[in-house]
């Protein structure tokens, strides 16, 4: 009797957790129906001109903004994260490495809003007044903030992924007379290419999903920046801003499309990561 009860309760809860994704997807698809039915609107969605008053609801600038910001933030966060991961694994002397892990955990625990807040009051004025780089609120400011925020997370992710292989190979490395840096660089990293790639994918998901930093630091102009000192707008920030529109309007409908675009990206990242780990499972 209780056997059945627990199994049913667990299956029920599992069902809820699993169905949430479908429910969200279905809701967005259903609410966006007026968009999918109207070919002219669909074409407009793919354009880069956003002027709801004139029936133009192009999301291309925002989609590009999301990709630009995420890519540039990762360009900072990934190499830095990798170097920090290597240093916790063995490049730093042992007591220092333990302190570094604590530091990384502390940094990764700082709330996003705190990073954004410090950026608004420290980085933005510095870029604008001391360096004279435009208005301060810009692609550059957002990319630096997001990059710094992601670095500790990337480092912890990578050090978690690399440490089993490193520990396993350490004795062999010692026997061959390899230094720790040699072992890490020329043996562990090449062996863990897939783990490196899947960590990159995973953190790109976080970079794309960030709302707060983009909203508070990027300037939010609907505009494709010609250089990093200019403002940009991401899909997530666009959703947050456009929520103020009339719920029945085309502009509001466009945020369902923006949400679906974001979900599509998350799904893509997930399946790429999954196929990577599948292949590595086959290999072993």
């Amino acid at each position, binding site marked *: 009797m209780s056997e059945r009860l627990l*199994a049913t309760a*667990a299956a029920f809860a599992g069902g809820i957790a699993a169905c949430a994704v479908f429910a969200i997807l279905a809701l*967005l698809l259903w609410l966006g129906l007026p968009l999918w039915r109207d070919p002219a609107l669909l074409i407009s969605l793919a354009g880069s001109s956003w002027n709801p008053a004139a029936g133009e609801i192009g999301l291309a600038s925002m989609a590009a903004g999301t990709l630009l910001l995420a890519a540039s933030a990762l360009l900072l966060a990934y190499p830095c994260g990798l170097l920090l991961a290597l240093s916790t694994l063995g490049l730093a002397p042992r007591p220092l490495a333990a302190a570094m892990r604590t530091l990384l955990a502390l940094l990764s625990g700082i709330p996003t809003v705190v990073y*954004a807040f410090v950026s608004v009051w420290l980085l933005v004025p510095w870029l604008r007044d001391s360096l004279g780089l435009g208005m301060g609120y810009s692609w550059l400011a957002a990319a630096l903030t997001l990059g710094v925020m992601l670095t500790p997370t990337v480092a912890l992710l990578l050090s978690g992924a690399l440490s089993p292989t490193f520990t396993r190979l350490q004795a062999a490395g010692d026997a061959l007379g390899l230094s720790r840096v040699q072992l890490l660089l020329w043996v562990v990293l090449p062996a863990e290419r897939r783990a490196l790639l899947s960590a990159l994918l995973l953190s790109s998901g976080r970079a794309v999903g960030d709302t707060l930093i983009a909203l508070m630091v990027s300037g939010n102009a609907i505009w494709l920046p010609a250089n990093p000192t200019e403002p940009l707008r991401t899909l997530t920030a666009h959703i947050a801003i456009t929520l103020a529109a009339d719920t029945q309007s085309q502009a509001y409908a466009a945020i369902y499309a923006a949400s679906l675009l974001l979900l599509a990206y998350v*799904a893509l990242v997930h399946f790429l990561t999954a196929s990577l780990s599948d292949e590595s499972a086959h290999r072993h």
Partner: protein
Amino acid sequence: MNPRTVIERTVVALSTLLAAAFAGLLLLILGFLLMGAWPALNGRLLFGDAPAWPALSGQVPVWDGLWPALAGSLMLVTLAIGIALPLSIAAGIHQAEYARGRRGRLAYTLVDLLAGMPSIVMGLTGFMLILLLRNILPEANTSLLLAACCVALLVLPYLVQATRVSLHQLPAELRLSAQALGLSQSQAILHVYLPAASPGILSGCILAIGRALEDVAVILLTGVVAETGLPGSLFDKFEALPFFIMVTAAEYRDEAQLARAFAAALLLMSLSALLFATARQLQKRSLS
């Protein structure tokens, strides 16, 4: 010099430099926040001019103090974890102990997808749901309860994963001995596996609390407001620390309010640091 040696030395030098830079960054953030918060760090920080005890319980409204935002955040997190925890432990048990084969893999995939979902999309969903619900229940509104449900959904995947992984990592001997003792599967799960997995679940839970505490994008759409005082019921609007920080960063009334936002950032940071320290202690204990 051998080019490989050059690379090796550069990597060592760079990684040391970076480590120092990030340690400096932490100090910079702390120092900067402390400096900005200094004028607000006094006895009036939480309650303004209101008397502390009556204000604590909401009998006297607090203006110009952080208490309503802090209390709102704590209530939100407690509710959200209260909703998510039982659900996700059950779902984690389902995935680790019952779900098999393709259906099991599908369940993993969906929960992982939920984990990757941008929080603003989750908030949007909650807001649209309440609009739809109002057709049946005209009294339904954005509120503490709705926000807690949406935040629960946000942290659910972390908790499910923590439960699933902790159960998977139990030593095989434990399972064998439970079976050898003739325990039924439900007895084994409830009385042996779950208690053994609890440190892992607990540390996942603490990370989930941190995630719930810092979220803004979800509550932005589901019931947080700039000013209201302590919520009187689950169906009231509420204030929250991260939202206060975000709003005040853009539009502060006066220097005193801005200093309070700095103090709020410091407070939020200390709360997360405390949570992370606890989680690490638990992880260490569960490993040893």
